[in-house]
Structures are given as C-alpha cells and as structure tokens.
C-alpha cells in the first residue's frame, strides 16, 4: 500500500514511515458513473486520490451568464491524480463540483486530520505542500493552454 501512495506526485519524497501514517487516515471509496463526489461550496473535508476512473470537475456559471445556473466542466482527473486539494488550503471549501464519468475508486484522506498531522510534523507538512504546489502549478499550466487555444480558435478564420 505504501508503494500505492508513492506513485502519486504529491507524495513524492515521502519516506515509508510518513506514507504509512498517511495511509492510516485513508479510506477506500467507490462511486458509480454519474455520482456527485462533492459539490462546489461544500466543506472540503476530504482529499482524494484517484485509483481508478475519470472524474470531471464542474464550475457553476455566474447567473449573469447563465440564468439556468448551468455548470460547465473545467477540468478532469484520472487514475494516479488527486482532487479536493481545497482540503489543505483555507477556507477549506470545495471550489468545484466533482462528478464521476466512469465507475471510480478513490482513497479518501480526512482533511482535518491531515492538516493536524502536518501541523505536528513540519517536515511532512513541507513535503506535502511542496508536492501540492506542483499539482496546482500543473493545473494552472493546463488552464492557460485552454485559454490560449480558445483565443486562437476565436481569431483563426474558418
């Protein structure tokens, strides 16, 4: 199981003892296709590692843009990736809604217990936050790629 956690980028650099202590906080959960795993605005009480499946992340459109308050998919995570990192960042509220597109299996780590562990073990906390920064930076780069591509599509003559 320790090897299972170490394949996730956010846990790169953790030693076996640190990984074992994280596993003690983890619970395996399964979701059918179409299930809402968490909603935008809910308290972020779990940090999730995707073991199987594909999960779409949706954002609610502002009412001014969409009277029907439709959600749009802005990201997706697949096997080997993490979601729900809002559980580690104030104000600990999910900023997106997660919907499984396929049957999904996740390892759910309790957010408040993880934060307590990080506060008590600063070395572990530093390693986790370093890993988290890489995840967030990667997501930001992907989002910029979408923005640039959409602008190019908008200005390219058809």
């Amino acid at each position, binding site marked *: 199981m320790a090897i299972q956690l170490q394949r996730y980028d956010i846990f790169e650099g953790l030693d076996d003892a640190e990984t074992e202590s994280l596993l003690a906080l983890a619970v395996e959960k399964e979701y059918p296709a179409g299930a809402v795993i968490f909603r935008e605005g809910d308290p972020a009480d779990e940090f999730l590692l995707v073991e199987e499946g594909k999960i779409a992340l949706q954002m609610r459109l502002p009412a001014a843009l969409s009277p029907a308050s439709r959600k749009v998919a*802005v990201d997706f995570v697949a096997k080997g990736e993490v979601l729900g990192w809002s559980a580690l960042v104030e104000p600990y509220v999910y900023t997106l809604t997660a919907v499984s597109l396929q049957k999904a299996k996740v390892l759910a780590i309790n957010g408040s217990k993880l934060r307590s562990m990080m506060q008590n073990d600063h070395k572990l906390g530093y390693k986790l936050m370093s890993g988290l920064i890489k995840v967030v930076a990667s997501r930001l780069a992907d989002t910029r790629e979408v923005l640039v591509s959409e602008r190019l599509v908008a200005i390219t003559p058809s």
Partner: protein
Amino acid sequence: MEGRNGELRVLVASDYPRVRDLLVEMAREEPGVVVVGQAENGARAVTLARSLRPDVALLDSNLPHTIGLDRVRLSRTGGLDAALAISEEVKPTKVIVLGNLDNVIFQEEGAALISEVTLRREVEAIPVPFTLRQLHKETPENDAVIFAEVARNRKKSLHRRLTEICEATIVYGSLGILAGLGLMITILLAVPGAALALASLAVVVLGLLGRFAISLWPKAASALPEYGQLEVSKQG
C-alpha cells in the same frame, strides 16, 4: 417522440472516427434505429441536437468542446457539457454519456471489437446491459443525463469466433472437394492417358528418324550433275 413507423432517431458524437463508427454500428444493430446525425465535438453535438431533435443522443464523454481544441487535454470535458445542454434545452431527448470509450477502444486491440460491444449501466451497483430502445422507453422524462459504458459482450465474441471457424471450414472443405474430384478424374483417365502418351512418343521417334534421314539426303543429291553442266558436256 419517435419518428415515422416507430423508428428511433439517434445522434452520436465522438471526435474519434473509429469510435463514431462503433457507435453508429452499435445503434444500427437494433431494429428500427436510425442514426440521424454525427458530431465530432460538443458544440456541434448541441447544434445538431437542437435542429434534429433526436430521440436519443449518444455522447463520448471525451469530446473536445469545439473544433480546434481536440489536442488540448482540459478541453476534453465537452461530452458532459454537451450532455447537460442537450438534456436542458432539447426535450424529451434522452442523453447517454459513455465514460469508458477511450479505455475500451484504444486499450483493447482488434477491429473485431466493433461488433462485440454492448451498452451497460449500473443499477444499484449491478451492471445491467440495455438497448437504446429500452432506455428510451423506460427512462422517466425528467431524468437528466444517463451515465453508461460500453462493455465487451462475451456471447457476441463467441458467436463471431464460431462463425469464423464455420466459414473457414466451408472454404477449406470446398477446396478439398475440388482437389479430390481432380484426383478422381486423373485416376479414371490414367489408362487412356498412358496410351496417348505412348502413341505420341512413337510419333516423336518417327519424326526424329525422318529428320535424320533427310539430313543424309543432300550427300546423295550432290552426285547428279547440275542442268547447265549437262549441256556443256554434250557440246564438248
């Protein structure tokens, strides 16, 4: 609302041509199902749904949002967005989102796979196969989007393999029959054939002897005087 003669009108969408072919073939296997449109991205799927108003929209969850974004990883969430838009705006179209097409089509080999998949969804944690017509008939009108998957149909695979074995047996068996008949004809004609060969051999030998004899004949002809030489000898 179904079309003329109870036909079920279906829209399919995926930006992979092989996947679109799979969805079209799978839909057409059902009697009375007509594929009325095909889309290669989410925006196009919504546009076609609005104009064609199909009974069922069958969407790949991996659709890019619009043209030109198919290489952008994060844009491949267009399937879900298109599904939500169609289910809200185009009633009573039933919308099915297939979440595992990329796993099934690209991780498993074989063009034969196209004829071996069926639709399946979880009902109380149990995977249940379904047809488009069943889903259209049984799903309540206010259901938003149905999340489903494609799965290999083991019975269809076995059926296909057995059919291939039978067809190969028929072909090779037919070739064997022809070879056997040819052999029988050869055996039946063995005696006349041998007689013909011997007679032909005799004719060849005669021909060779005659040619030899003719090759000797110019030596005998050179002893007779030429006509002109006879006249000179008479005068001399």
